[in-house]
């Protein structure tokens, strides 16, 4: 055991951790926005909205993330005519993939609001948009918070998959340091520990929020 390997490479590793957080934050924001659209689409009574949204959600939920990352890595240059670079193509893959999972969270959240609320909204003369905006979504969002926090933890872990297209995030940097220093035990324990701490914070927060809601 030679733990000195960690402080020696700490700034390099932390640089990767910053990139990991950037990836997670952007994927979270983008995935959530797209997820709201898809989730509402899944609840639409208009068939031309419902079917594409359902197809989108089921398509991405039946694929491994690693494959989606490869797919965008190969696909995006083909569509726009030039390579996008590792970071952007990873971001697009994460947003597209996580949106499918957020869509299901949004749908579940909205369905947890009693049907009577929608009717009450309409009966006061509000439009579909106004009912959603002022009555359904605020209540639904409250129900969605714990699963969203859990999904944040999952996204944070999922960013480690950007490893496969060579993006120098935390895990990639850990393995780069390992290939130079040959200290697998210390390095992977350290990486696991760092992920464990951040994810545990998220998991505990999610559990707290959930039990607070049950009490309400």
């Amino acid at each position, binding site marked *: 055991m030679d733990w000195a390997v960690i402080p020696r490479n700490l700034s390099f590793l932390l640089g990767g951790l910053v990139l990991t957080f950037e990836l997670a934050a952007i994927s979270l924001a983008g995935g959530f926005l797209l997820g709201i659209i898809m989730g509402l689409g899944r609840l639409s009574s208009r068939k031309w909205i419902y079917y594409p949204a359902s197809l989108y959600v089921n*398509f991405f939920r*039946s*694929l*491994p*993330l*690693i*494959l989606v990352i*490869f*797919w965008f*890595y*190969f*696909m995006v*240059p*083909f569509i*726009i*005519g*030039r390579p996008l670079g590792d970071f952007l193509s990873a971001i697009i893959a994460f947003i597209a993939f996580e949106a499918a999972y957020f869509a299901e969270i949004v749908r579940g959240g909205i369905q947890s609001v009693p049907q009577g609320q929608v009717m009450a909204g309409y009966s006061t003369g509000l439009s579909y948009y106004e009912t959603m905006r002022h009555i359904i979504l605020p209540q639904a969002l409250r129900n969605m918070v714990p699963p969203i926090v859990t999904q944040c*933890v999952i996204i944070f*872990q*999922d960013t*480690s*998959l950007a*490893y*496969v297209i060579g993006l120098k995030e935390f*895990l990639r940097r850990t*393995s780069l340091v*390992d290939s130079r220093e040959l200290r*697998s*035990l210390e390095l*992977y*324990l350290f*990486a*696991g520990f760092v*992920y*464990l701490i951040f*994810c*545990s914070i998220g*998991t505990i927060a999610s559990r707290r929020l959930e039990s607070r809601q049950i009490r309400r």
Partner: protein
Amino acid sequence: MFSYEFDWSVLWREPYGQWMLNGIWTTIHLSLLAWGIAVALGLMVAVLRVLPNRITRFIGGTYVEVIRNTPYLVQLFFWYFVVPSILPEASEKWLYDHVPDLPYWTGVICLGVYTASRVGEQIRAGMQSIPPEQYQAAFSTGLTTYQVYRHVIIPYSLRIIIPPFTTEFLTCFKNSALTMTIGVLETTGASYLIDSYTWHGLETTTAASVVYIVITLCVVFFMAWVERRIHIPGMIKRG
């Protein structure tokens, strides 16, 4: 414009077609073996977590928390790069000499251990969804703790948890793709390998996606059938 000539024949041309088929087959048996480990281990974890004993609950809880709060890829690298190096030298040598397909078996074990934490939670939720009266009734007929679980609680729980089990199996099946990072040539790995020989990643990745979607659909339909078959009269039926 980025000129790209589609050449779908990379999917069946020699030798690539064979690689792809081997990849699909590897995906299937790798995920099934891992699933076997996951269910056995998950059952143990779940029982540890519901037993009236603080120590077993702590062990089970720690296992679940540690596994669920670290990325699967980190665990995979840990099993592959770290575990052999901390074994005694003799067993490390034996491992490299006698296990012909070390990445594959590492993948099976890691995926099994990882999935077990999720499966364990589902089993525990299933057990706890059983009303306490069932336990009291079972105990009052004179069954031991072991017998109560073996004959009453587990048969009930198994049926309750089939829907979440289907989801977890599909997650396990999709996670098997990550074993490509340690060199297992399953579906995703094979499609990537063919790309590196032919530069036709778009076709191979599309083909791999179709494989995952088709298998997912098959599993979903099969499990819906199983659910109808073993349904206990009087229990809530799906849809």
